[in-house]
């Protein structure tokens, strides 16, 4: 029998990953700390207020039409070119209005999300 083979140490890559550097604000939210809670509440309130504003614009325009035609039946006789007013408003003009509201909403809501991302990433390092 020859000499035993020299022992070899078998190693793998280190198990523990180096800590990913994450913004302090994100850690606060993940830890569900009081500060993280404040961040979330302000985001939720801002988005909800924006949504309700768009819905209010919808209700105050489209939503008032039946009432207007109920209170002023003479609107039914108004003509714009070859079209009765009711057909023009509901059959044609409503659609660009809905698209415009949707477009404005998306612009604002993406601004809000960008602000939120900036806010949680620039938060100064909290003492551990």
């Amino acid at each position, binding site marked *: 029998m020859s000499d035993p083979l020299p022992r070899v140490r078998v190693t793998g890559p280190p198990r523990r990953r180096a800590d990913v550097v*994450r*913004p302090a604000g*994100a850690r606060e*939210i*993940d830890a*569900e700390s009081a500060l993280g*809670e404040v961040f*979330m509440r302000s*985001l*939720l309130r801002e*988005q*909800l207020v*924006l*949504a309700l504003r*768009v*819905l209010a614009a*919808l209700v105050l325009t*489209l*939503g008032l*039409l*039946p*009432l207007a*035609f*109920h209170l002023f*039946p003479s*609107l*039914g*006789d108004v*003509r714009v070119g*070859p079209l*009765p*007013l*009711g*057909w023009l*408003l*509901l*059959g*044609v003009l*409503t*659609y*660009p209005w*809905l*698209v415009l*509201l*949707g*477009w404005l*909403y*998306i612009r604002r*809501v*993406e601004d809000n*999300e*960008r602000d*939120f*991302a900036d806010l*949680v*990433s620039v938060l100064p390092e909290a003492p551990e």
Partner: protein
Amino acid sequence: MSTDILPGVVAVVLVSLATLAIGTFGLRISRTTSDFLVASRTVRPRLNASAIGGEYLSAASFLGVAGLLLTFGAEMLWYPVGWTAGYLVLLVLVAAPLRRSGAYTLPDFAEARLGSAGVRRLCSVLVVAIGWLYLLPQFQGAGVTLRATIDAPPWAGSLVVALVVLASVSPGGMRSITFVQAFQYWLKLTALLIPVFVLLAVWMSDGAADPAAASPPSWSIPIASPGGGIGLYTTYSLIIATFLGTMGLPHVVVRFYTNPDGRAARRTTLAVLMLLGVFYVLPPVYGALGRIYAPRLIENGSDVLVLELPSLMVGGVLGAVLTGLVTAGAFAAFLSTSSGLTIAVAGVLSQDVTGRRWGTRRLGGVAAFRVAAVIAVVVPLLMSLPAQDVAVARTVGLAFAVTASTFAPLLMLGIWWRGLTPTGAVAGLLVGGLGSGAAVAWTLGTSASSGWAAALLGQPAAWSVPASFLTMVVISRLTAATVPAHAGRFMVRLHTPEAVDLQR
């Protein structure tokens, strides 16, 4: 076989073949369960919006709206307006959070948000019931179309639609159906748009008669007949049902999970608003021209107005080609909406029924989906055979009232209010579902009558939606101790942009 049925036959055959061909193309790239249920979440906004538009514009939009406008006038414009505005409400309240929730189906969302298997089961039952209530008029509309264009017996159209839907859905699932539905949106738009130009040219050369002159004054007033208090109530109730009902439609909701992220979900919704706006300008043209050229359809048979108007106004070969075109569009409408609903119902059934262990056997994901698809199609098909005479748009309108009273409150409160509890959700779903469901059953079961009782039951959303909301809030407050422990964490997942690196 006479020559005037030829365009209809050619149209139906071509649309069916194109649907199957595109579905087969998708089959080559569908492999996993995720492909089947949500197209692996990789569908870009523009394609996705076309697919949503294709699936959403059903028989009610393609045939029903023009017919209702012909008979009743401006009050019926609220249907297309509501069906479009529903997407704006969906955009601002649920689109992005729903996508970020990461669930496959509505019951998945309910279970993930509330952590309760009971809520999940109730939602599954509701999805299947609403899906079938919505599939029924699609099959019936197909029967009406084939009877009007090629004189087939009424069951033939239902059967053809059912078979084509099964053949295109079960092999490829969501991934292949996405392409099919995108194709069908553009087909439907073309099928209404090209005839409109020809018909308007004919109308101008005939001296541009005024449709309103041939109609009673109520035709120009957008308030439901008979006007007064009842008319106002009916109109506002319809507005509530359609504005809120859209977000709860199972086949629409499942499409949102195919977006890559929350931002794409919003952009998809905006594109859908544009596509629907372009489409819905067209049916009123048919309704108005019908007043002049198709007066005999006003009293009965208004559902076939879109199919018959081209041949009534234009003769010869051009008339036949246009008839073929609108028939193709109508058939695409049945196929796309039915396949979307079949996917949604089959998705729920495969998770909660056919995918379970039965005895010692258990079907794999894809096999379970295919069995579920068969069940999802056969049941409404059998239901549609005896009852061929329910108005298409009426039944679809009732389905909106049910979703507005059940899933709309669940989604809105679930997404924006931490305090929702499982008990509150179940109570609200039961109150809204049973209330609106009873009204629907009564309306479908009795012949038309007038007065306040008929208005309250025929258009239940104005009372059933607030009742459902109120029940959810009050019962949740009473059971506040059972607010799920993970509610706060789930809110983080729903509302924070993907750009922020968080544990989700």
